[in-house]
């Protein structure tokens, strides 16, 4: 097995909920949003790992944790075998250089008053790499790599002069200019038009190959996993419901939540008869998650044990882990 580039061990992130004045007076207990609640994962070097979840599942928090945007409440995250929580000073700066993020909304991720070329150059300036001419040269060659040809023509433009797809290319160029090893892309195409999405995904993948990147793509769209993933993890309410190779997850999904997710996707084919498994209800609050299995209030196959005992991720097939009591029977 190849080396894990990033490893998460029982990682939790709980955000405190602000208590109201009256709640403070009567001394009610502090509440927490349990955004990520006990996740263990390994992301191998050079792979595309797709993390799928609905809003509120904690997928973005997990992405930010793995870049040390903030520290976990408990658990261990290690990058190249070293814990990232304890990094300080120069070592932390090195980590920041080798782990980068591509954001969802390219309009919000770019400063409207900074020329796009300077935006691409900014990370080099921050890390004091080379003089201004060298930085500019590298920015231009990076812009060319993401599809701006000739890059000189675009360097001095402002973000509002670009289309959504072009802006996202700039965001990608900026994330890659430091030559990172690991890139987290949080819903990289959710804000783009359908006819542009495939272009951007293809670009990310080509760059991944060229630059030897390891990619963590965070998305709500399972179809993206189908096209690009080596491994897929399905997240529900702060926990991993199912995890495995793309082939296993798509051919042989086991967790009832994964199955529901698959059958909910509208299929662009009017003649495909569908045995939809429409599950009822919505994702419960992460402040008071259900006891036992998180999915039990909505699960069509729920039985007694699900309500009391939290299932563990157990290997049920080759490199295929499922967190569900159904398969213990």
């Amino acid at each position: 097995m190849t080396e894990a580039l990033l490893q998460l061990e029982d990682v939790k992130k709980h955000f405190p909920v602000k208590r109201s004045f009256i709640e403070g007076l009567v001394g009610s207990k502090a509440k927490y949003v349990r955004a990520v609640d006990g996740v263990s994962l390994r992301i191998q070097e050079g792979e595309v790992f797709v993390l799928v979840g609905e809003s509120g599942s904690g997928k973005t928090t997990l992405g930010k944790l793995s870049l040390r945007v903030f520290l976990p409440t408990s658990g261990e995250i290690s990058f190249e075998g070293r814990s990232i929580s304890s990094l300080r000073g120069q070592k932390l700066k090195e980590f920041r250089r080798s782990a980068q993020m591509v954001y969802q909304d390219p309009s919000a991720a770019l400063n409207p008053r900074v020329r796009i070329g300077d935006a691409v150059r900014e990370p080099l300036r921050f890390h004091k790499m080379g003089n201004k001419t060298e930085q500019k040269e590298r920015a231009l060659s990076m812009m060319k790599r993401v599809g701006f040809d000739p890059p000189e023509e675009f360097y001095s433009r402002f973000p509002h002069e670009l289309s959504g797809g072009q802006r996202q290319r700039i965001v990608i160029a900026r994330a890659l200019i430091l030559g990172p090893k690991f890139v987290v892309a949080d819903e990289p195409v959710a804000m783009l038009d359908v006819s542009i999405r495939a272009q951007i995904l293809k670009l990310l993948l080509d760059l991944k190959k060229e630059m030897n990147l390891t990619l963590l793509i965070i998305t709500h769209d399972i179809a993206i996993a189908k096209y690009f993933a080596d491994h897929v993890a399905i997240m529900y309410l702060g926990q991993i419901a199912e995890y495995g190779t793309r082939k296993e997850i798509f051919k042989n999904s086991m967790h009832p939540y994964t199955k529901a997710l698959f059958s909910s996707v509208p299929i662009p084919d009017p003649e495909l008869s569908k045995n939809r498994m429409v599950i009822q209800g919505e994702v419960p609050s992460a402040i008071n998650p259900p006891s036992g299995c998180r999915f039990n209030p909505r699960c069509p196959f729920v039985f007694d044990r699900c309500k009391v005992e939290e299932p563990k991720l157990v290997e049920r097939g080759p490199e295929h882990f499922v967190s569900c009591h159904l398969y213990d029977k």
Partner: protein
Amino acid sequence: MALIEVTELSVSYSVFKRELKAVQGVSFDLKEQETLGIVGESGCGKSTLGLALLNLMPPQGKVTHGRILLDGEDILSLGKEQLRQIRGKKIAMIFQDPMTSLNPVKTIGNHFVEAIKAHNPDVSKADALEKARKILGQLGMSPERLTDYPHQLSGGMKQRIMIGLSLALDPKLLIADEPTTALDVIIEAQILELLRQLKQSLKLSMILITHNLGIVAEVADKIAIMYGGEIFELADTKTIFRKPLFPYTQLLLKLVPNIASESTSLEWIPGSPPDLSIPLMGCKFAERCPYVFGKCRTDAPKLREVEPGHKVACHLYDGGKP
């Protein structure tokens, strides 16, 4: 007879003194109990078309040409008061974002009472609430929700309420503009299921505006493909998916991720949609079309019937092939 008949409709916005032609020469009709899916990318004019059908144009927008007949009545020539009578009662709209479409300081019940009393002042509050209770039942929600405020509801429940409000006056035609785009897929499936049921039980006609071909495949009877403000292809749902003629439709179908298919290669359309504030000779899609030839850059193709019930605007099917 057609419930709604749109002929040669054009809508323009004036943006910084320039004219942006958002909708150009759009024609279609819809029979009772039929569902039309209008599919296109952002900026193709599909939402503007939806607003124009209710004569709900924002101040900088104007219908420059065309006619909309609803039940034989010309919507564009009606006065304010007459329009108010039609909106909600005959034709209602569901908007994309349920989060911002409800008033945060009003209870759900009051939303219903307001909508119903605005059109029928004689109805008592108790009767209006009774009607609201009935609708909530149809939506699969508990009547206790009537005393809730919008912030107490989840996104999916808010969208149910929006649908419920649009049905409060028993309209014949429901226009839904991206009704599930703000929602997660499982909730999306629930809402689509609900729309399908309501369509059946209330005998509604629907116009579903979306960028998602998967949604129209499941709900629509016929589909109009919009690009750059025009309808380029119009046919029943099966034909659009089985025998698409317009190159954009063909490409669009290939690039929509389909988790049910075996293929794992994604295609895409190079370039991006046209800027509608710049007048363009010829076909709007010519820039990105793989089959482009001379005529495409000089003459704009017209939507015409090439097979029974299948209309397309493309020079490839004019007989004047390259």
